[in-house]
């Protein structure tokens, strides 16, 4: 599944062949449930026959609180994939000095049962 990014929504690149799922950009839609629904639907489908190793690349510049719940739902769905004998690893990227996004990654790491790697990069 590929969704182009916009001024308020991230670009989405979910590849069921490679098991690489990427979200990149800003996530500040007014109605985030609407935006995240197709992602979660895709994930439900993917969860029925996932790759042995799934990698989630979170390259978010920033997100609003309304998205934060949807991102949590997304991780919760991935938890189930991870529990069924398949591995799911999350790479959470943040830009150098952006401690807010670093903290956001740590917040998810603390409440989601998935292995997180929090990765500093010069530019997302």
């Amino acid at each position, binding site marked *: 599944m590929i969704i182009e990014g916009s*001024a*308020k929504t991230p670009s989405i690149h979910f590849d069921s062949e490679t098991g690489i799922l990427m979200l990149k950009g800003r996530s*500040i839609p*007014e*109605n*985030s*449930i609407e935006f995240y629904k197709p992602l979660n639907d895709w994930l439900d489908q993917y969860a029925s026959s996932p790759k042995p190793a799934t990698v989630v690349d979170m390259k978010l*510049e*920033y997100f*609003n*609180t*309304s*998205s*934060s*719940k*949807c991102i*949590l739902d997304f991780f919760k769905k991935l938890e189930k994939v991870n529990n069924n004998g398949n591995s799911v690893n999350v790479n959470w990227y943040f*830009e150098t*000095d*952006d*401690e*807010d*996004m670093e*903290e956001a990654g740590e*917040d998810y790491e*603390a*409440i989601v049962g998935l292995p997180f790697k929090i990765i500093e990069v010069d530019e997302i």
Partner: protein
Amino acid sequence: MAISDVYDFYKKMEDENIILSFKGTFSEDLLTSILHIVEAKMGGMQIEPKKRKRVFNVLVECFQNLYHHIEEIEASDDELEQQKSALIIVKFKAGVFRITTGNFVRNDQIEELRAKLEIVNELNEDGLRELYRTKLQNECRTMKGTAGLGLIDIARKSKNKLDYEIINVTESISFFCLSVVID
């Protein structure tokens, strides 16, 4: 306003270091425009990326907060329709941003609003983070996805106490002013 007052009005905005202000009905398209304008202005100001993101974040949360609260006001007559209008002001001086909003709230919502603000203002950074995590995990959300995290997030990004005032307008409606500093 008499035409002779236009200059005074302009001067006042200039003296107050207002870089953007809008009064009227809020919409998502308006948010896109406001972000666009603020982004363009910050582009020429040499603001460090971290601060730029914080300003954006706070603007988005303030705006979407307003938007949702306004939606809750029932527009049964013209007077109420007018109350769907809100105000947003962005000031910038010497590296410090101040985002101020004003909007109408129902009087029966005030108690809850005040309680939320008081809790947020009592907490330090770690406390806010803890509250954020707890709410993110536990709290249900509305149909629109608002999660009750808005004010907490604004306080976390601001790193300052939230300044607010609730002014009674009529028996059923008050005007809620919120002012957030990002320095």
